[in-house]
């Protein structure tokens, strides 16, 4: 027990010490974790014998355990992708990933054969291993910077998704490349595989069967289960169930030799349409972050400094060569995908490293006697080093390329920009904020816009918008945009969580600022009401109500009657939404917020409230109503 505490203190302490520092230096948290891991590795070597442990063995164990972080990350990514959306991406996935993996593997194989005189089998194994990039580093960096929805971000994600799928056949192919019979021992890096003893024709059926099981599980069993747990109102059981679900699917996938990450990704995509999506995300998020951090640290800790020092120049040359080669292939793939300059740069810088799957595949290849242990050891260092360099490439992209591309025409403008602070700031100029901005510009009001979509900024700047690049939740950016002088602040970003965070921050620290906030859905609106925000705009509320008005008119209602019917409905709904917002945050007898009331957001509840609206106003428009007047006149006659 004491040992476990010491190890935990070492890892957590190092992370706490170095990750904020790395962030402050703008290096990104991934590099922070890797460096912290490197230091842990050194310290562990000294401490482990004293604790009676083998440090290499320990790190391997921790690495396997924390791989669960990568699995959780893919589950969360899956939750944010609707199945229909994934289907739409299929061509990009095939183009981006297929071309990248095959071309990279082929080129590396040639180099291995002709440059290092290795057999084609070894070359192919190395090529396939190194063609894969690091989903963990890329996706967490894209999320951290808010670039996941840019064109370059999506292209990167498509390629990564293909790679994650490609791991399955690669694992199957590598044992076939063995030129000598296996030494036995470790069969598969993943551990137990029940399919090994099955006849070959049965294996694909088992795989298909497993995916069907995942589908049925996610589609039909999860919702009733979560309903049952939600009714019990025990927050920690809900979290347990969420983690349990991911574990079950990951275990199932591992058992049949599939990538657990891919399995939970599929489950995530299926659950993205569940009403518990948001709840699942929130519950898993902290575990994902922590485990992912430890995973990066184990990669850093496993870094073999002795071997690195011994083969210093070879390893440097191999690493640079690998990254240049991968970058070049990605450059070509980017051209095929017709990415524009900024997005193109992000794409080929982001994916130019070896990934965590390389460690798994190298272990497998050594176990199957495909690759000699010495070569694998060198390659492990190359992969780890390329992973450590990646955050620096992201930094180069953000600080140099983006600045250069975006501010190309800024130099001459800067002089008159300094004193100019607009009254209106719009955070997020995508499909929502852009319309707000255009309306204002149309009426001669200048706006300052904040966004992190480089392509969008490029275009808007050409039309004279004053756009700042970056995450609007950053204080320095808000200051640069002139938050102190602003009169109105429009929050129109895509991500509801960032919207709520920014609204809360501005509401508290700039109370005089007039906030206008976009709410993506009802739940977001509830949070904003709770904060005391006055101007809340539910995204589809206006347009869908307008459509309803048009349909009423088509059904024979007079235009003005339909207009009033729409306005009255909106008014009543607004009042009820406020009421629902209150009950959403009601607390139980112990004072805990009943977060399970997420259920409030389901369709049945909204419909029930419509019935309430009907009773409330008798559904009749009483404008210009003559009944009481006619009654009056009728009575006069009777007198």
């Amino acid at each position, binding site marked *: 027990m004491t040992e476990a505490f010491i190890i935990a203190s070492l890892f957590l302490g190092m992370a706490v010490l170095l990750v904020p520092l790395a962030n402050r230096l703008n290096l990104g948290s991934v590099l922070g974790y890797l460096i912290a891991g490197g230091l842990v590795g050194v310290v562990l070597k000294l401490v482990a014998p004293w604790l009676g442990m083998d440090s290499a063995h320990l790190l391997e164990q921790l690495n396997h355990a924390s791989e669960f972080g990568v699995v959780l990350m893919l589950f969360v990514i899956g939750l944010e992708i609707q199945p229909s959306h994934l289907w739409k991406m299929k061509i990009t996935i095939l183009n981006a990933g297929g071309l990248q993996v095959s071309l990279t593997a082929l080129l590396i194989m040639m180099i291995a054969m002709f440059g290092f005189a290795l057999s084609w089998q070894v070359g192919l194994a190395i090529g396939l291993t190194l063609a894969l990039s690091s989903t963990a580093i890329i996706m967490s960096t894209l999320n951290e910077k808010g670039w996941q929805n840019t064109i370059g971000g999506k292209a990167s994600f498509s390629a990564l998704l293909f790679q994650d799928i490609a791991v399955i056949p690669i694992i199957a192919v590598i044992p076939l490349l063995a030129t000598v019979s296996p030494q036995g021992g470790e069969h598969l890096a993943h551990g137990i595989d029940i399919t090994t003893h099955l006849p070959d024709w049965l294996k694909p059926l088992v795989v298909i069967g497993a995916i069907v099981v995942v589908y049925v599980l996610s589609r039909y069993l999860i919702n009733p289960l979560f309903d049952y747990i939600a009714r019990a109102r025990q927050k920690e059981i809900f979290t347990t169930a969420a983690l349990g679900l991911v574990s079950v699917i990951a275990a199932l996938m591992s058992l049949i030799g599939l990538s657990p990450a891919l399995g939970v990704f599929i489950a995530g995509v299926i659950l993205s349409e569940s009403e518990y999506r948001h709840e699942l995300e929130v519950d898993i998020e902290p575990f994902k972050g922590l485990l992912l951090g430890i995973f990066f640290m184990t990669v850093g800790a496993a870094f073999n400094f002795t071997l690195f020092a011994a083969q210093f120049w070879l390893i440097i040359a191999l690493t640079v060569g690998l990254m240049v080669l991968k970058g070049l292939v990605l450059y070509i793939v980017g051209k095929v995908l017709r990415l524009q300059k900024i997005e193109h740069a992000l794409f080929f810088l982001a994916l130019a490293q070896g990934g965590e799957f390389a460690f798994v595949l190298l272990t497998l290849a050594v176990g199957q006697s495909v690759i000699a242990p010495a070569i694998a050891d060198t390659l492990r260092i190359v992969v780890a080093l390329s992973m450590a360099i990646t955050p620096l490439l992201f930094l180069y992209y953000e600080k140099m390329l983006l600045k250069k591309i975006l501010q190309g025409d800024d130099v001459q403008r800067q002089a008159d920009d300094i004193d100019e602070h607009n009254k209106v700031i719009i955070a997020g100029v995508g499909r929502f904020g852009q319309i707000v901005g255009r309306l204002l510009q149309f009426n001669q009001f200048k706006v300052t816009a904040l966004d992190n979509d480089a392509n969008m900024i490029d275009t808007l700047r050409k039309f004279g918008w004053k756009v700042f690049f970056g995450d609007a939740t950053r204080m320095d950016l808000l200051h640069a945009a002139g938050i102190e002088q602003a009169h109105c602040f429009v929050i129109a970003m895509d991500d509801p969580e960032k919207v709520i965070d920014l609204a809360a921050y501005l509401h508290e620290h700039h109370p005089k600022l007039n906030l206008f906030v976009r709410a993506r859905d009802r739940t977001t609106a509830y949070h904003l009401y709770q904060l005391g925000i006055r101007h809340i705009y539910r995204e589809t509320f206006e347009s869908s109500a307008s459509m309803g008005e048009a349909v009423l008119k088509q059904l024979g209602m*007079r235009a*003005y009657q339909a207009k009033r019917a729409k306005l009255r409905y909106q008014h009543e709904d607004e009042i009820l939404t406020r009421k629902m917002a209150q009950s959403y945050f009601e607390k139980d007898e112990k004072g805990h917020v009943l977060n399970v009331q997420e259920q409030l957001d389901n369709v049945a509840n909204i419909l029930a409230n419509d019935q309430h609206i009907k009773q409330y106003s008798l559904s009749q428009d009483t*404008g210009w109503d003559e009944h009481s007047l006619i009654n009056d*006149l009728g009575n006069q006659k009777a007198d």
Partner: protein
Amino acid sequence: MNKVLVLFAHPVYQTSLLNRTLLEGLESTAQVTVHDLYEHYPDFMIDVAHEQNLLNAHDVIVFQHPLYWYSCPALLKEWMDLVLEHGYAYGTGANALQDKIFISSITSGGDAANYAGERNIRDLLKPFEHTARLCNMQFLPPFITYGGLKIKAGNFDQLLTKEYLTEQRERFRALLDDLVHQRINEANCLAFDTMNDRFDQLEIQHD
């Protein structure tokens, strides 16, 4: 022949007995255009250029509306405020509406007795009269259809009511016909307080 524009404004036409009596079945023809303002502009975004083009294309402007608080419904007032611009309808050199004919066709909840003495209908409609005069238009006495609410309240004999409504409907058609065929103008209507008086007199002459 004149071209007649009926500018109709009623926020709840579907419940208006009198306006439906007058307007139902009245289709726009080559000579008469019926323009339903509340149906066109439910959000009050009046297209001024379109409206002025309509005015330019017609010789007679009929305001058809109920009397709300001794005036017209809000949208018609908005129409007046926006369409009758300075420099177009009035002001130096503005002559777009000059010599065109203006006439109100009013429906009312009360009956004729409610608009006697101090609440004389001609006095109540002075704002419209002055508007027409400022635009150098010919102003004709108003045509009035009374008693909408009292009819609904059942204050009158049913048979008489039916006769009255039929008569008003025919008189309104006749009025439009007179306007199209240029039988009436400001000069030959000076003797009448309302168009209703003119129709009454015509009937006496017939008898």
